């Protein structure tokens, strides 16, 4: 067993037994950590792998959450039935909104995606179709029911999020070796060379946005069930900036990096909650310092310029 697999197994075991040692406040933090790391992975598909500067990911996360909330509270759908729409709708919105701007260069795309996030928040706050509940959001979302069982306890939420993370990790792992994953590596390294090899950049970037938005939507659905409520400020641009920063502080395109990033950006501030006022000041300083000391993230991808799947063949 390789060292990486040992670490991965260790992580999964620790996260698996965590609920037996945590009180309910920390269990909630743990569950949110799992959900946020799923969102961070989906951000990483777009930002770290496809190399598209995307700073509006909270919008897709939020569309997933609101899909579940609206279908459940307004139309009485069971939560289980909202899962598919909560994945498909963010995907569709991503395809429609991103396709006219996908060709924009780096920073332009970044500002345009911030714009998508801000438009999403204003639609929620202004209660466009009378469905989103305005600035207060939606309360009283149901729990997951399967054949008469109700999954309402904190521990249930935790393990549902844990399974979601497991599925996401499986997808991320599969991406690496797939045609899509290889195309991403080339586009990210050198888009002109990739294009001349016949890789359709536009197609693969859209593909990345669609998958990323779908996974974020699934996480959003989980998030809305966990808190049984949704409100606009959980999905504003600051959240998008957090997901963006998680990937870069942790190490883009690196699975352990993204997990560490989520831990550093979300769990650490929770631990230092007592230092309420000063903590974000220190936090900002830490962001600057991390980037100066480790410009490629805390745990960057190891293989340098050669993708891992090529190295395997050489051996």
């Amino acid at each position: 067993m390789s060292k990486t697999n040992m670490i991965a197994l260790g992580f999964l075991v620790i996260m698996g037994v965590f609920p037996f040692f945590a009180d309910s406040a920390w269990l909630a933090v743990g569950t949110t950590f799992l959900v946020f790391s799923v969102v961070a992975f989906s951000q990483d598909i777009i930002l770290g792998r496809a190399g598209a500067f995307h700073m509006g990911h909270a919008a897709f996360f939020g569309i997933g959450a609101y899909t579940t909330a609206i279908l459940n509270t307004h139309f009485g759908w069971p939560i289980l039935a909202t899962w598919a729409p909560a994945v498909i709708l963010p995907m569709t919105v991503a395809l429609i909104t991103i396709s006219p701007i996908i060709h924009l260069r780096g920073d332009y795309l970044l500002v345009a995606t911030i714009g998508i996030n801000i438009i999403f928040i204003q639609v929620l706050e202004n209660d466009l179709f009378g469905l989103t509940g305005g600035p207060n959001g939606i309360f009283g979302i149901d729990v997951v029911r399967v054949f008469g069982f109700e999954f309402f306890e904190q521990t249930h939420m935790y393990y549902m999020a844990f399974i979601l993370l497991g599925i996401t990790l499986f997808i991320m792992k599969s991406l690496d070796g797939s045609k899509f994953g290889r195309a991403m590596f080339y586009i990210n390294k050198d888009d002109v060379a990739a294009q001349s090899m016949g890789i359709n950049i536009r197609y693969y970037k859209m593909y990345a946005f669609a998958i990323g938005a779908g996974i974020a939507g699934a996480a959003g659905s989980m998030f809305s069930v966990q808190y049984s409520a949704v409100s606009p400020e959980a999905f504003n641009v600051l959240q998008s900036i957090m997901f963006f920063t998680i990937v870069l502080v942790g190490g883009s395109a690196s699975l352990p990096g993204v997990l560490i990033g989520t831990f550093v950006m979300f769990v650490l501030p929770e631990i230092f909650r007592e230092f309420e006022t000063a903590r974000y000041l220190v936090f900002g300083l830490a962001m600057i310092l991390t980037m100066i000391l480790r410009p490629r993230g805390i745990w960057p991808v190891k293989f340098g310029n050669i993708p891992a799947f090529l190295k395997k063949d050489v051996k």
Partner: protein
Amino acid sequence: MDIFLQQLVNGLTIGSLYALVALGYTMVYGVMKLINFAHGDLVALSAFAGLTVYTNIFADGGTSIIAVITVFMFTAAIIAVVGVLLERLAYRPLRTAPRLSAVVSALGAGLVIQNAIMLIWGPNMKIFPSDLFPSTIWDINGVVVTFTQLMILGISSVLMIALYLFINKTKMGTAIRAVAIDQDAAKLMGINVNKIIMIIFVIGSALGAVAGLFIGIYYRGITFDMGWMYGLSAFVAAIIGGIGNIPGAMFGGLMLGLFNALISGYISSAWAETFTFILLIIVLIFRPTGILGEKVAEKV
């Protein structure tokens, strides 16, 4: 028609504030290819610093022209120093790092400034004194113009013309344009690139500081987190005009200000930002480098 003219006046006022802030973004972007996300927070810091300078130094003496000028000069100097420190500590070590690392550093720096404001001045809204400018109001056939609005328009125009002349007519301005085109070649010509970048931060921050003070004087209420939205709008203005392009930033700022004012006047201010970004996306679809174009050859 009255609404239209009134929103025209308001829009030009807000637009010149956007333009002043946008200049700071566009100059830094032109030379360093970096979105200086902390710039908006510098603008907010300026409003608070100006408030403290004004209340501490001129608390009882009443307002004179000299007092107002001193407040502006002093605050601009403070913010310029902060801007230079920002570049020195947060951006210079990352000049050769991947571009997104510098973006994260800028976001971190913005967080630091914002929370420093909150720790020093508190989380509540502060009210800016109203007696810096006379409260004269002209009513021209139902269109209200205030003295403050005229001052904002006048001073911003003077500053922007001065900047334009400085960049295009002086030796230092030529050096700035040279660094924007090619840093290595500029270095070989004997230009001190670090010094040029420092000057850019001095000018950009000082212009932002003036905008911050005007925001305080014009809107009165200032909050520690207000910089983010002004900064973002100004950056959008810079992109609409053509990033790296100084007349572009001025044009973009004025255009966005007018656009926002008309949207607020005729549709609803609750949708202002939505329309701002729809405008941005439409402009980018048809003119991917902004209306006046990115100045690739003469990027400053």
